[in-house]
């Protein structure tokens, strides 16, 4: 897992959003697929759902990076006892709640940034678990790029910390 994955996902989102906006502006395309003015809100909603899928993608990449980097740091201990312990931890690491892993990061970064990631995680869970309609949706994003940036800021730190070890 390379930190550049975040740029790649964002680039894919950029392209998707640009295409969506172009489609909406193009009269010929609109008429061809019967998008009348009153259907504009449908396209807004469609883009909103697509944004949510990108948040899942972005968060999944972050989670992979975090688990890989923390596992790598455990493996770096070199006595035999530690090796045995790290085997167990590596085997079980996929089952450790990400909230616990995020709490570890509070020692290295502003806890508010970690809190923001937890908010994003709750939103991600709400989407991934079937978003209950008309019921308590968690804190929503204001702009998907803010979500991307909040994750990226912490991901860079996770990456830097593991490189420095």
């Amino acid at each position, binding site marked *: 897992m390379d930190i550049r994955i975040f740029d790649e996902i964002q680039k894919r989102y950029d392209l998707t*959003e640009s295409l969506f906006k172009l489609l*909406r502006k193009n009269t010929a395309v609109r008429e061809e697929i019967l998008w009348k*003015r009153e259907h*504009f*809100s449908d396209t*807004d909603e469609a883009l909103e759902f697509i944004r949510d899928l990108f948040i899942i993608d972005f968060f999944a990449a972050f989670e992979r990076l975090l688990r890989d980097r923390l596992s790598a740091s455990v493996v770096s201990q070199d006595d035999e006892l530690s090796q045995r312990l790290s085997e167990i931890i590596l085997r079980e690491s996929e089952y450790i709640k990400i*909230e616990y892993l995020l*709490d570890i990061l*509070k020692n290295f970064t*502003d*806890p*508010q*940034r*970690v*809190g*923001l990631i*937890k*908010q*994003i995680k*709750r*939103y991600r869970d709400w989407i991934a678990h079937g978003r209950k309609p*008309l*019921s*308590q*949706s*968690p*804190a*929503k*994003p*204001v*702009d998907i*790029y*803010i*979500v991307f*940036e*909040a994750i990226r*800021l912490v991901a860079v730190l996770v990456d830097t910390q593991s490189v420095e070890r």
Partner: protein
Amino acid sequence: MTEDIDFNDAVVEEFIQNLQLMYREVKSWLTGFVCKENLIEIYEEYALPYKAPELYIYKNDGFLCKIKPVGAHIIAADGRADLIGKRDKLSIALLKESRAVKANSDTKSEQTDNEDLRKDLYLGYEGAGWYVCWGKRRITKISSESFSEAMESVSGYKNF
């Protein structure tokens, strides 16, 4: 109107108050336009369902756009409303004064809105207030000019 609003907690109450302040300001910029308010119900995780006003904006009897409140619990912001026109939609974000960090570290109480973090996240942040969000992290503090630009962008109406 305030009697109809079911206040649940301070966050929601403050959001609605800020929304009303923004509407008052917006109306003062819109001479020659007709504005109407309509209460809608909002569902959020950290509050009981509550009502907040939408603001409809008309010109010469034609609908131009509306400001629709989204919620008081927003990731990296203190509230969000959407400016919705026939052409497009833009978000308007409330970014309040920075609060002190609480010692309690559970998810709900972690404060995520300090000034440094905002400056890292938003391009164009210049203190507390409502902001038009143009996408790609670019924001502009709401003013007569930025709101006219936003209205033009979502409605296509040019003669402000």
